[in-house]
C-alpha cells in the first residue's frame, strides 16, 4: 500500500525540475570562439561556429571548418540573439573556448561585458580572454589556422602552450579576471594576439593563408581599462615576479661571445612586504632552477668556477628582466599588475588601511628589492662542450 502511494509522488517529482529541454547536437550551432568589438552604436559580435559538415569529411573538403556570424547590437545579448535571424541552428555557447576582445573595446573598459558572461547560464567560466592587439576581434576570427582546423581551438591550445613554454602570455579565465579587477592592490593583464604575415609562409600557400595568428606580449589594465602593452621580455619578467613560470628558455652571454641557453625547470617567487617608518617596501624572492640546454662556445660548464659565473650571469639576467617590467609598470603605466598592494595588505594590514586610498600614487614610488637564487640542475646528456679541446680554456 505504502509503495503504491510513493509511486505517484515519484512521478510528480519527475516533472518538477527545470532545465531539461532536449536538443539534438545537429540542431546546435556550436560556438567555439567569440569576438567582441566596440562600434559607435554598440557592439559588433563575431561568432565562430563549427561547420560539422566540413569536419565530418574524412578527406579535405572545400568548405571551411568554421562559419562566421557577424551581428551588431546595442548590447551583447541582443546582438547574440539577433544572429538567430541568419542562422538555421540554435546558438550554443557552452563550448566557447576563447573570447577575443578588440583593442578599442579593451581600452574603453570591459566591466560591462564581463557582467554578461558571468550572468548568462550558458557560458562556462573556463574560457580564456584575449585582446586583439592593434586590430579588431572580427579580423582575428576571420583567419584560418594550420594544424588545428578550428581556429578557436587553435587559439585556446596555443595560448596554453605559449604560457607554458615561452612565458609571454597568461591564460586568464572569467573568474580570475573578475577577481583581479575587483581586488584592491592588483590589476589584471590579458594576453594579446596579433595578425602577422611572414614572407616565409607565402612560398607554400596562397597569399590568404599566409596570415597567421601569434600571441605577442600582454595588455596591462588599470582596473578594467587597457592602458598599455608589455613586450615579450617584460612579460617574462612579469611571470618571474608573480612566480607563475613554465618551461621558459633563458640565455646569457659569457664574455660577450659564448652563448649559454638554459631551460627553466621551476621558478617560485615570494613577495615579502615590509614597513619602515610607515614607508612600505617589497622584497621579491625568486628561486629558479634551470637545466642547461645548449652551450654555444667553449665555456667548460663542468668546472665549478664556471658554473658559479654562469649562476651569477643568470641571476643578473632575471633581475634585469624583473626590474625592467617593474619600472615600466610603475613609471609608465602606473598599474600594479604584480599585486604588490595585495602583498602589503596581507603582511601589514594596518599600513594598508592608510595606503589603500592613495595606493595609485604610493605604488609609483614603491621601492622593490630582489633576492634571486638560481640553481643549475643538470647539464643535459653531455657534460663539456663537445668541441672543447683539452688544455684549452
Amino acid at each position: 500500500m505504502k509503495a503504491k502511494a510513493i509511486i505517484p509522488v515519484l512521478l510528480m517529482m519527475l516533472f518538477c525540475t527545470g532545465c531539461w529541454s532536449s536538443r539534438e547536437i545537429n540542431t546546435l550551432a556550436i560556438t567555439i570562439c567569440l569576438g567582441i568589438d566596440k562600434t559607435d552604436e554598440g557592439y559588433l559580435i563575431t561568432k565562430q561556429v563549427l561547420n560539422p559538415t566540413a569536419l565530418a569529411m574524412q578527406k579535405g573538403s572545400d568548405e571551411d571548418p568554421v562559419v562566421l556570424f557577424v551581428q551588431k547590437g546595442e548590447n551583447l545579448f541582443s546582438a547574440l540573439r539577433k544572429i538567430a535571424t541568419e542562422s538555421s541552428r540554435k546558438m550554443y555557447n557552452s563550448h566557447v573556448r576563447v573570447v577575443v576582445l578588440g583593442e578599442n573595446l579593451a581600452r574603453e573598459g570591459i566591466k560591462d561585458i564581463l557582467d554578461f558572461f558571468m550572468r548568462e547560464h550558458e557560458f562556462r567560466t573556463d574560457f580564456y580572454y584575449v585582446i586583439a592587439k592593434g586590430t579588431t576581434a572580427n579580423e582575428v576570427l576571420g583567419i584560418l589556422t594550420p594544424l588545428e582546423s578550428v581556429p578557436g581551438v587553435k587559439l585556446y591550445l596555443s595560448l596554453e602552450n605559449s604560457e607554458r613554454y615561452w612565458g609571454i602570455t597568461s591564460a586568464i579565465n572569467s573568474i580570475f579576471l573578475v577577481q583581479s579587477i575587483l581586488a584592491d592592490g592588483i590589476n589584471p593583464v590579458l594576453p594579446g594576439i596579433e595578425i602577422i604575415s611572414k614572407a616565409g609562409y607565402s612560398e607554400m600557400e596562397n597569399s590568404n593563408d599566409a596570415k597567421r595568428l601569434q600571441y605577442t606580449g600582454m595588455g596591462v589594465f588599470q582596473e578594467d581599462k587597457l592602458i598599455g602593452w608589455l613586450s615579450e621580455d617584460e612579460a617574462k619578467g612579469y611571470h618571474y615576479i608573480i612566480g607563475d613560470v613554465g618551461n621558459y628558455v633563458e640565455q646569457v652571454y659569457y664574455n660577450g661571445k659564448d652563448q649559454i641557453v638554459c631551460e627553466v625547470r621551476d621558478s617560485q617567487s615570494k613577495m615579502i612586504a615590509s614597513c619602515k617608518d610607515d614607508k612600505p617596501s617589497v622584497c621579491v624572492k625568486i628561486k629558479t632552477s634551470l637545466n642547461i640546454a645548449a652551450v654555444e662556445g667553449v665555456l667548460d660548464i663542468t668546472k665549478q668556477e664556471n658554473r658559479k659565473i654562469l649562476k651569477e650571469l643568470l641571476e643578473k639576467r632575471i633581475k634585469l628582466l624583473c626590474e625592467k617590467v617593474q619600472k615600466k609598470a610603475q613609471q609608465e603605466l602606473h598599474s600594479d599588475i604584480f599585486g604588490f598592494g595585495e602583498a602589503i595588505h596581507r603582511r601589514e594590514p594596518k599600513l594598508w588601511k592608510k595606503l589603500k586610498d592613495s595606493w595609485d600614487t604610493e605604488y609609483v614610488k614603491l621601492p622593490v628589492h630582489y633576492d634571486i637564487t638560481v640553481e643549475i640542475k643538470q647539464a643535459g646528456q653531455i657534460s663539456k662542450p663537445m668541441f672543447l679541446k683539452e688544455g684549452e680554456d
Partner: protein
Amino acid sequence: MGILRRVFRRKNKKQIPRTDGFLYRDLLKNITNIKADFEQNDDLIVNSFKWSDNQDTICASLYIKTLVNTETINSLSEEISILKMKENKSRQALPLDVLRAHFSGVRTLKEGDRYIDLYADLLSGNTVFLLHGSSQYLSIPTESTEGRSVEEPSSQTVIRGPKEGFTENINQNIMLVRKRIKSNALSLESLSLGNLTRTDVGLMYIKNIAKDSMVREIQGRIKRIETDSILEGAYIEEWIKDDRYSIFPTFLSSEKPDSVAAALLEGKVAIFTDGTPYVLTAPALMVEFFHSSEDYYHHYIIATMMRILRFFAFFLTLLIPSFYIAIATFHQEILPTPLLISIAAQREGVPFPTFLEALIMENTFEILREAGIRMPRAIGPAISIVGALVLGQAAVDAGIISNVIVIIVSITAISSFAIPNYEMSNAVRTTRFAFMVLAGVTGLYGVFIGIIILTLHLCKLKSIGVPYLTPIAPWIKDGNVDTFFRFPFWAMKNRPFGLHGDDKRRIGGEYPVRKNKKGNQEFR
C-alpha cells in the same frame, strides 16, 4: 494468480487415475483395471505366466516397453525362469516371497498395494510383478538409463578447471556432485513434483554447513508447489521465488558440478531437477552472478581483476547507452570540446533523434543476438556477416546511423557478454531499455532516478529470505573476502557471506609453508 491456480487444480482432478484404491486379490481384475487405465498406451506390456507347472498360481509381469532397458528385462526373465525351475522342485514357499527373497539381495525392490503407486513405478520404468491371490505387488527397477553422456557444458565454458557438465539425468548429476564431496554429511532429499510429470527433484545440502531453517524453508516451499508439470529447474524457481515480479534471478543455475559443490560448501542448497542439465542453488546473492568457477582456479589477484572487470562491464552495459543519449541530447556542455566536435561531426546529417537512433541500433543488436541463438549452426556466420556489414557499415555509410552509436552498441553488447551468468545478463539487458527511455525523456536526471529505483529494488530483493545484496548491504564483517575481491584460500577463514549453519570455519591450521630462521627452506 488465484484464478490461474484454480484452473490448474481443476484440470489436475480430471487427470487423476480412475482406480485410486488398493489392489484386488484377483489378478485378472487388477489387470483389466490397469489396462483400462492405460487404455491408449500400446507400449504397456503385460505378460502372464504360470509360476509352476502344477500349481494354478498365475503371475503377471508388467512394464512399459519404451521405458525399460531390454537387456535388464532379458536378464530378469532368465533369473525368473531359473527360480521357477528351482520352485518346481521344492514347491513350498509362496512365489512372492521367493521373488522377494531373491531380488532384495541384489536389486532395489519396492512393494506396494495401491494402484497409484503401481502406476508411478510402472511409469518410471520399473517392472511390476502381480500375483493372483495377493493384493501386493513387487517392482524391480529396469529403467533405461540412455541419454547424453557427460559432456563439456555449453553455456559455462572454462579454460582452467573441470570440463564436466551436468546431463539430463538426475542420478548422474547427483553422482557428479557426490564424487566431489565424499562426506556422509552431504544429504539428499528426493521429491517428486508435478501431478502429471512426476519429475524427480533432489534437494542437496551439507548438514551443519547449510542453515537448518533455510533448508526447511526451501523444502516447505517446494512441497507446497501444486502444478501438473515441472520440466525444468526454472519452473521451480518461478514457483518459489521470494519476489515473484522481479526481473533479477534469485536462484543461481549452473551447469557445472564443481560450482554446485562449491555452493554446497558455502552453505547453499542445491535443487536438482530430472531432465535438465541445470542445477539451481539457493540462496543466491547478487555478487555471485558475477563470479565464475574459474575465479578459484586462477591466481587470486588475476581473479580479483577479472571480477572487478565484470562489475565494470555490468555498469557499462546497463548505463552506457542511456548516458550517451542523456549527454548527447541534454547535457552537451559536460563533454570536452574536442569530443563534442567529433560527435557533432559524426551526427551531421543523421535523420533520427539520438534516442531513436540508439533504440533502433540496440534493438537491431537484440534481434541479431536472438536470431543467432535460434539459427541452425550452419547459417550462424551468415547472420553475423549481415549484422556487421549490412547493418553496421552500410547504415553508417548511408548516413542513417552515426558511427558513435555503433560504437556505443558494440560496447554494450560486448559488456553484456562479460557477465558470466546468462540470466543476470538478460535482466541487465532488459533493464537497460528502461534506462534508455528515462534518459530520452529527462536526461541524466532520469538516469539517476532510475539508478536510485534500481538500487532500492535490489536492496528489497530477497533470495530465500536472504537479502540480495548480502554481504554488502547488510554488511557482513567476514563476508567480503569473496565478493569483489577473491581472497587467497588461506585468508578465507570462514565460510563467506555468513549464510552458514553451525560449521563456520573453513580452514583449520596455519599456512603450511614453515619458515626457519633464515627464511624459507631452500634446496639446491
